[in-house]
């Protein structure tokens, strides 16, 4: 059978198709694995970030802002606004537009960028040339 001329020639040896398939399988698995790692990492980061944010927010001295009279003043006039004001106090968040009108003791801080001095080279003498004619001759006549 090995050298039978009637039989078709054996297929040419290939570079281990099994290996190649395995490699492809591995490659095909990698994105999913990477995605899992990525999602896990992002989730962990998000949880940590949120936890830190809540912790810091809890330490912030916000009750004074929450106790401004905006909500209560408006409450006497408008039930809806009262509701908003109360919920704001409870949540330690007040819309800037609600606090701004009555909180006159705090002026908005406007910080200007630093004033700069523009460097200007000093005037120095020019360098004379030699030519007194030619195609390049110019005329200086004063704003014409």
């Amino acid at each position, binding site marked *: 059978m090995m050298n039978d001329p009637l039989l078709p020639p054996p297929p040419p040896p290939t570079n281990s198709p099994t290996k190649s398939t395995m490699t492809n399988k591995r490659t095909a698995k990698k994105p999913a694995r990477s995605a899992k790692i990525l999602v896990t990492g992002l989730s962990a980061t998000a949880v940590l970030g949120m936890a830190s944010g809540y912790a810091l927010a809890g330490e912030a001295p916000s009750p004074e802002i929450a106790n401004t009279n905006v909500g209560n003043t408006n409450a006497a006039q408008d039930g809806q606004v009262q509701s908003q004001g109360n919920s704001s106090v409870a949540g330690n968040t007040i819309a800037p537009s609600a606090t701004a009108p009555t909180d006159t003791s705090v002026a908005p801080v406007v910080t200007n960028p630093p*004033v700069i*001095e523009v460097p200007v080279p000093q005037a120095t003498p020019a360098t004379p040339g*030699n*030519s007194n004619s030619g195609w*390049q001759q110019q005329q*200086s006549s004063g*704003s014409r």
Partner: protein
Amino acid sequence: MNATTLTLGTRQHRTLMGVRCEVSVVGGHAFALVEEGLQMVADLEQLWSRFIPTSDICRMNAANGNSVWVEPRTIALVGHMVAAHAATHGAFNPTLLPVLTAAGDTRSLIDDKTSFVNEDAHVFPCLDGIRIYADNTVQLPLHMALDAGGIGKGLAADLVAEHLLSRGAESVCVNLGGDIRVSRQMNSSHDWPIQIMSPTNPQTTVCTISLAEGAVATSHINARQRDGHGIEQHIASATNELPTVRAASVIASSASWAEAWTKYAILRDIKLIESTGLAAMTIDSDDNIAETSTWKEFVR
């Protein structure tokens, strides 16, 4: 025939900033560079014209004491204005626009554009109130109005010349209505002959100078009058000084400085200019010429 006359160069001109703007380039890609230079002047005109409402100058003047973001080159212009005002002891003053408009100088000399100045604007003898901030904003004092005028043309000539050299030109000459800046590469021997024209008869040459590196600016009191338009006399001062001569030419390292010192020469004298090492020439109403000793070094 010497090497200079064999050197290839080209020049083009266009009406920009209200005057004839001519850019000449020797060496490099001369044709393309000339066009690039003219376009750069056109861009600067959009920034500095008092006849274009969207220009940096107009926006600063209309800001009512607030700070305005401007292009970095406008920051450089304002810096040059402040420095020139200090160096010339106030003879150069960029806040004279209210005086000019009150005298009737409200229309462009080349088209129908008009300039507007707040009626409360007035001349400032001191520029200390101008604030330039690090974020590219400028704050003018309330009621101050700047006019780029001559120093704007001079600085434009300086910026264009420097730019074209950096782009490979061997030697360049930028002429903005008589404010001329020439510059060349270190290894170049090219220079530029310049005719100083008479203020009374623009076709007559008073003298010819030659510049290898530097600038010359000529200013005369009738420069804002053309073809029956404009005003008779445009040189003013914060202290009501009157011109002592009819025209002045100053040679310095840059066109912006040369232009600023022409105002000093017209309103005062040329002694201080000589003491700074610069060269100047003045012509009075009787065509008498006065010049610094350094002026002769440039005459050919």
